């Protein structure tokens, strides 16, 4: 009997511990799926939030999709508070998957750190949140993400990843990568460039920072027409947290080959004889990098690739000549890309991640000041190309 009453008492006590069971339903929250940052007029920033609309039983199906709100403010924290009060919703950043930053905010040193450093930890934004830079206002870019297909932000991000893997034309950067690049001396980040299709071409120079103007499409100047207004290609090069230049899709592809992030893609190559080849290139293995620090930092990078000439179908040259033509073109492009990065002072190709391996203590590495030494470094690129005669057939067919 005594035990029975003890159990009853324990049960009663447990029921009083219902502190977490409040009446907050999911509709009470406004989940910010994407955040946009623009320069403000009266306040320093305009923060746009793409909020997820939650379906409830009593509401119609039309209520699904996004709700775009914006606020002028001094920081993201302030914007979250202002919008929470006016909507009224408890703004939650647990599901944030995308951050879009207008290019004008990347031109000043320290602005990116100010925008993201404190809010990411205070608002518990996930470190895998993808970061994009936008040629057009971030608000317009976020608005352009919606169309009649009603894609979710998760699906858009997954599609970008798949596009990166299939083409190599797009670098993807998340908050971990961005913070790692901004706070440390290891390397500099490269952020994908996006924009609203009709507006972007006017806002950008015709050439990228390497000087490429052949086949150069960057930030929303893709020749496509769709109901989804936002499109994306190419990248912004950062030096620390500040914009240093642009890369078009083809140079991004090359940078990814050198960094080891490349899987496959299509590339237009001009042979020494002036012939244009469209070559499908697939990464055979990860690139091998031999790095030495003294007397000056030097790297020898070997990049194994498998190539298949798609057009013209039968180039009027031998296999060895074709391989040599592809190797020469890739090597020249890689040399130009490195020269551009060194000129801009940004270690986009991540040679710092190899340099750090030569040090025994963090103190020694930090005292070395890699970024000051980097412009003097030398690199030799060797593209180990194997030519395929068929892409889809096995050796036995």
């Amino acid at each position, binding site marked *: 009997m005594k035990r029975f009453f003890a159990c009853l008492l324990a049960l009663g006590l447990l029921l009083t*511990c219902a502190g*977490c069971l409040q009446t907050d339903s999911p509709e009470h929250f406004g989940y910010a799926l994407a955040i946009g940052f623009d320069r403000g007029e009266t306040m320093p920033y305009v923060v746009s939030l793409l909020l997820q609309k939650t379906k409830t039983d009593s509401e119609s199906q039309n209520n699904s999709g996004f709700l775009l709100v914006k606020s002028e403010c001094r920081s993201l924290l302030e914007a979250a508070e202002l919008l929470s009060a006016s909507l009224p919703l408890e703004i*939650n950043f*647990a599901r944030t998957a995308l951050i879009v930053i207008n290019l004008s905010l990347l031109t000043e040193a320290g602005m990116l750190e100010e925008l993201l450093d404190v809010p990411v930890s205070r608002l518990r934004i996930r*470190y895998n949140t993808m970061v994009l830079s936008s040629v057009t206002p971030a608000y317009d870019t976020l608005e352009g993400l919606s169309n009649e297909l009603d894609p979710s932000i*998760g699906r858009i991000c997954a599609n970008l990843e798949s596009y990166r893997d299939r083409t190599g034309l797009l670098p993807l950067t*998340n908050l971990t990568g961005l913070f790692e690049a901004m706070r440390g001396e290891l390397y500099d980040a490269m952020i994908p460039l996006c924009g609203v299709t009709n507006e972007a071409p006017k806002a950008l120079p015709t050439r990228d920072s390497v000087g490429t103007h052949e086949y150069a499409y960057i930030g929303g100047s893709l020749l496509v027409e769709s109901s989804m207004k936002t499109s994306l290609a190419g990248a912004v090069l950062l030096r620390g947290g500040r914009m240093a230049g642009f890369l078009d899709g083809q140079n991004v592809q090359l940078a990814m080959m050198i960094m080891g992030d490349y899987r496959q893609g299509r590339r237009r190559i001009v042979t020494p004889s002036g012939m244009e080849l469209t070559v499908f290139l697939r990464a055979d293995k990860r690139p091998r990098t031999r790095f030495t620090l003294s007397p000056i930092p030097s790297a020898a990078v070997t990049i194994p690739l498998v190539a298949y000439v798609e057009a013209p179908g039968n180039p009027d040259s031998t296999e060895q000549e074709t391989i040599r033509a592809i190797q020469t073109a890739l090597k020249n492009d890689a040399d130009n890309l490195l020269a551009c990065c060194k000129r801009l002072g940004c270690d986009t190709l991540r040679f710092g991640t190899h340099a750090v391996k030569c*040090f025994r203590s963090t*103190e020694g590495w930090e005292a070395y000041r890699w970024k000051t030494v980097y412009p003097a470094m030398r690199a030799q690129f060797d593209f180990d190309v194997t030519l395929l005669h068929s892409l889809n057939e096995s050796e036995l067919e």
Partner: protein
Amino acid sequence: MNLRQGRIGNQEAVAMAFLSCIACGVFSTNTKLTYAAGNGSYLVSAFSATLSLLLVTVVAEGMRRARCKNLAQLYRYAFGPVLSAPAAFITLIALIYAAAMPLVRLLMIMNHYIYILDNVQNVALYLIPCVLTLAWMGLEIIGRTARLFFVVIVLSFFVALIIAIPAYAPYRLYPLLGNGLASTARLSLMGINRFFPALIGLFICGAGVHGVNSSLRCASIAAFGGGLVVVVIQLLLGMTFPYYILSDIPAPLYRLTMALPSGSMFLRADKVLLFFWLLSGLVTAGYFAYSGALLFSGASNMRDIRPASAAVALTVCSVALMGQLNLSAFHAAVSFLQDKVWALLVLPPLLAAVLAMLKKRGAA
């Protein structure tokens, strides 16, 4: 005598100490301090686990020579009936600290990421019945609970590590020695408080774990296995985030699955896994609360452990809650203690063991 001790087998004892090693090894790490000057936390964990095992081996030798079945007997033998109670009290304080630290982190994660709108006091209320029940019911229940959840909890840690594979980049581990050997040695010494309590707990409950030899065997397995799991976790954490980001994250393991290039597929994996990790924290808190109470009861000749174990369990939960509240005096005390706790933990049993060895030698 109502010490709620009974007898547990080797599997239960190993599971109990193993889980405590992992919970403390992962969730008691002071990230600000550990990652302040580089990413050598995996080395630090390996050295700390080894040092802890060496220290308990010395304690075991002292107990063997003095023919003591548990640590309370060793304290009484070495320090005498008057001084044994204060010595046990010092160990008890250190055990409360060791039990509360994983709970502080787990409570923080629950409050910040799951029960966002609720206040921390309400969330902390749920810890009390679990820790109190375990400490009240005694060694057998703690051992069996640990064994029951052992495989699932260990697997949950590995699931998180497997999910995060795409985010690993080995260059983040460089420079390999962190900030050099001196810094690694200093952090290893301070890290003893992450492994030593789990191992010394087995000697406190020595009578229930079939004596000193059995306790030492279980402690060796737990230190090696638990230490290895912690080293792997720290190594892979170091490959996921650079050290200057890790030093800003209080519970990096919880952020591990959020560091993937695309986390949408595993959006809720972190929350599911957290509840298994919480189980490890609760078992650890119950185990340390019971061990502390048993040591204090034994050293001060108390015949019933229940008042002491209830008081210690409630203190552990209160300390865990205070860790989350804005109490400046409490935080100042914890900051003062955190690099000295290892000494509080190690000195009384080590001194007792040395004294016991000297006494024995003198008697012979």
